């Protein structure tokens, strides 16, 4: 009986250890399903100026013949969306930070965010394909509910919570 129980637990954990369904570029490290954290999607920043990292573009699935690659980053203050079952618990509110033309898939936020505040962030790649400017979708989770990409404001941007207290120049988030 015990081997059966052990095998079951291994299969349960292993079966769910895969990336959350998403669109666009994903944060690094990639969020994996099957963890034991109480809120596996939420990232807690160590600093009011967190360093955000994401996948390099082009990914193996993307067209290889792209050039002039850069990244765009946006951070919104999260707004609670109460009494709206099935429509997303938090939505992007005020856009508080935006950068374009980033050449590396990593960025340290240049102005301090508010302490103890939930933000949502997303990135996308801008590039040229056969001489024409193209972009990827804004990166977003399709979890816990696969929201349609044509729904605005987008549900599923990546949540990050800033620490309480004053600005502290610490290590990357």
């Amino acid at each position, binding site marked *: 009986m015990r081997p*059966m129980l052990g095998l079951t637990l291994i299969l*349960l954990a292993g*079966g769910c250890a895969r990336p*959350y369904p998403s669109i666009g570029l994903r944060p690094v490290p990639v969020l994996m399903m099957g963890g034991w954290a109480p809120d596996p999607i939420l990232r807690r920043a160590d600093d009011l100026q967190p360093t955000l990292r994401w996948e390099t573009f082009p990914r193996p699935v993307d*067209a290889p013949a792209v050039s002039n690659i850069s990244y765009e980053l946006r951070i919104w203050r999260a707004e609670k969306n109460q009494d709206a079952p099935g429509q997303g618990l938090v939505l992007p509110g005020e856009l508080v930070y935006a950068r374009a033309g980033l050449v590396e898939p990593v960025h340290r936020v240049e102005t301090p965010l508010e302490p103890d505040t939930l933000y949502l962030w997303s990135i996308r790649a801008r590039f040229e394909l056969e001489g024409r400017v193209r972009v*990827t979708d804004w990166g977003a989770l399709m979890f816990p509910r*696969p929201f349609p990409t044509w729904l605005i404001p987008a549900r599923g941007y990546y949540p990050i919570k800033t620490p309480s207290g004053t600005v502290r120049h610490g290590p990357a988030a």
Partner: protein
Amino acid sequence: MRRVVGLVLMTAVLAIQSGCAGGTAAKRYQFPPSEDVRARLADVQVTAAPTEPTFQFEGPAKGAGGGARRGAGMGATGTMAAGAAAGGYGVLAGIVLAPVGALVGAIVGAAKAAPAEKVEQQERAVRDALQALKIEEGASACAEEAMRRQTPQTRIAAASSETASTIFEVAVERLGLTGPWTINPSLSFIMTERARLVRASDGAEIYSYRTVYLSRSRPLEEWLAADESALREEATRACHELAERLVDDVFLVYRPGGRP
């Protein structure tokens, strides 16, 4: 007994594994135009579709009658859901007790609902405020502004130009407030836009795309406070964000192999 437990465990594994494997996003997005279609887009003229948007208002229950209907529905479904959650005989109990839940819900709903005249007056205020904004005219202006900002490579023909080869037609199909079917729900601002690429020479539709703006929810009173200022601010934000997304998805977004 052991066989039964083993069977249950393996069933749980299969169920959870298949659940984790789900979440297919493929049906949740619309395909952008092909690169071949995009390559033929030149001298694009942005126009507003000659249609009036449909006003949408899914607000609070109107009067004791409306409240009783919604309360009865909520009471019945709530009772059955609670029974189903309990499982076993709970399912049967939920079905049997559903009429009792409906009766209690109807009484509570009738007591809690706002007078019909008040809700109708609020609905008129929302309709009048949105009509005064003339969003259907603003939507094409927002789209043209977004095109100039986001796609400098696309030539935009003047509104009076007869040389445009492609028409980018923007229509506001629906707008208003919407919320869940409860007695006095919080409401979200909703605005549905449809964009079409039309060949100017023969009016043939090349591509069509629909997108929906659904704001965070607020009580109806908040939407109407301070001369409907929250409603106007949300409509302005919706105009810009819908335009940005339309231009992104129609002219810029690239999804290799259809994969997002």
